[in-house]
């Protein structure tokens, strides 16, 4: 019964998309740069590596033994399903055509994307590569959400949520900020995804955690991680992959990519250091989980700013990230009593928001020069208070839309297939109960 529902829905979506794939295709050609292509292929590989195996390891390392495979399954499925849907319609709706609200249907099923095609948003690399690069972003954003619902959400429900959320939240907000939508026209600065990726994923995660309610035994039983070493490995791969995430957002092999990587790496380092120092000071011991949490917080927070700031700004931003996200994952979380299993909100949601605001403060004209912005744009530090306001608007718009749609989606799924596994399944562990396999 339940399963049929799942499939029927999947089929409908696929069918719809395929039909419309017959629309006439456009093919724009232009000068493709081999060096930029060389770097962007590597960058794309790095960003995919962030999800598999990066995020899969990071999350799996934070759950109990009985849920390790189920956690990885969510990352794997995100890659498989988002990729197919991205090619089917996501890319076209987000990155082709300059509508204020949504893109076009010109590239349904990538129709008309030929050898020489390029996208006006990235004229120097093959369009197929640009499509893949942006695909990797959509993948990890959906996968990130799984951390909030770990240990209790139905696999089928997660897939349905991911599919709906991709088209209703990710695609539009990616278009608004990066695809020539109204937020980009408004001047919102988000280099690699403070709003589109991190705020979106973190907020959706929080909503999902609230709707799903806490894990059984939360606050009473010991729910500590089974094998933190997996999370450390995942962090390493995420960190390295972030070079492609932020550096690749320069869409070319140039100084801007290098500068973005410099501020990114320094933010990660400082975030790790600050979180470690805080734990050492407040709890007497610096934990490995604290270091990796700080690193990810720094990486998520610098993301929107990375292409617009100076390297040493990365140290400041990373430091603030460690401080604020530590507070969010401890004090704030305790006060609000929600069970965001792996702190997607506390780290990505808070970090993405913080970073988007800080971009409005640290943005440096000299760094943000580009074809669209010949003089670059400065932030508060360069006297431009207005930018901070614009950033705030970007956060408000993206956040509100994400929160509302995510909530409705979850409720719909809850009413139909149901969001949460039964109590016995949760006790036995999702590996066995949902996937019929387990670690020995």
């Amino acid at each position, binding site marked *: 019964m339940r399963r049929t529902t799942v499939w029927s829905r999947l089929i409908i979506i696929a069918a719809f998309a395929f039909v419309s794939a017959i629309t006439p295709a456009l093919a724009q050609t232009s000068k493709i740069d081999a060096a930029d292509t060389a770097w962007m292929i590597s960058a794309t590989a790095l960003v995919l590596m962030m999800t598999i195996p990066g995020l899969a390891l990071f999350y799996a390392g934070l759950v109990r033994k009985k849920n390790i495979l189920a956690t990885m399954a969510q990352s794997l499925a995100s890659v498989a399903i988002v990729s197919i849907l991205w090619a089917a319609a996501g890319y076209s709706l987000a990155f082709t055509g300059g509508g204020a609200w949504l893109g076009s249907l010109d590239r349904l099923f990538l129709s008309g994307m030929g050898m020489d095609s390029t996208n006006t948003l990235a004229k120097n690399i093959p369009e197929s590569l640009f499509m893949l690069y942006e695909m990797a972003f959509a993948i990890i954003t959906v996968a990130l959400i799984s951390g909030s619902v770990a240990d209790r959400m139905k696999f089928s429900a997660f897939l349905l949520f991911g599919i709906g959320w991709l088209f209703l939240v990710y695609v539009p907000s990616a278009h608004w900020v990066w695809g020539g939508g109204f937020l980009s026209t408004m001047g919102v600065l988000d280099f690699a995804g403070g709003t589109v990726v991190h705020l979106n994923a973190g907020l959706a995660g929080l909503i999902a955690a609230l709707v799903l309610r806490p894990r059984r035994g939360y606050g009473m039983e*010991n*729910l*500590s*991680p089974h094998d933190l070493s997996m999370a450390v490995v995942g962090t390493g791969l995420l960190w390295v992959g972030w070079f492609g995430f932020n550096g690749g957002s320069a869409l070319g092999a140039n100084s801007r990519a290098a500068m973005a990587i410099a501020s990114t790496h320094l933010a990660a380092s400082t975030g790790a250091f600050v979180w470690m120092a805080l*734990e050492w000071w407040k*709890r007497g*011991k610096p*934990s490995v*989980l*604290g270091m990796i*949490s700080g690193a990810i917080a720094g990486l998520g927070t610098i993301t929107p700013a990375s292409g617009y700031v100076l390297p040493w700004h990365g140290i400041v931003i990373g430091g603030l990230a460690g401080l604020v996200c530590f507070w969010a*994952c*401890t004090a704030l*979380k*305790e006060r609000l009593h929600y069970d965001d299993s792996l*702190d997607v909100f*506390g780290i990505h949601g808070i970090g993405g928001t913080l970073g988007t605001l800080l971009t409005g403060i640290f943005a440096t004209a000299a760094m943000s020069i580009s074809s669209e912005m010949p003089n670059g744009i400065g932030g508060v530090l360069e006297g431009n208070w207005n930018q901070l306001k614009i950033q705030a608007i970007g956060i408000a718009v993206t956040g509100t839309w994400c929160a509302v749609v995510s909530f409705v989606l979850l409720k719909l799924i809850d009413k139909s297939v149901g969001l949460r596994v039964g109590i016995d399944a949760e006790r036995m562990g999702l590996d066995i109960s949902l996937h019929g396999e387990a670690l020995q």
Partner: protein
Amino acid sequence: MKLVIAVIKPFKLVDVRDALTAMGVEGLTVAEVKGYGRQKGHTEFYRGAEYAVHFLPKLKIEVVVPSDRAEKVVEAIRTSALTGQIGDGKIFVIGVEKAVRIRTGEADDNAL
């Protein structure tokens, strides 16, 4: 015969085994267990979450010996497993009615 069960601190295994072999006990069986008792555990933090760990890793040694040697074996274990600190563990003695060596079928004392 007696089954002597000893719950000890993990790092004491080597000492205990040596003490037993020294007195001619040729075999024993060890299991990893978790112990709860007066020895307090510690607290672990995972970001916001705080977990008190009450169960501590211990080793459970089981050795079956002829009744007349039980006393000595208990004493040997006690002295070799002793650190004097809380959590050193316990030794229990239970009567065994029958013992068999699978390989040979030898029974009771000959099976040990």
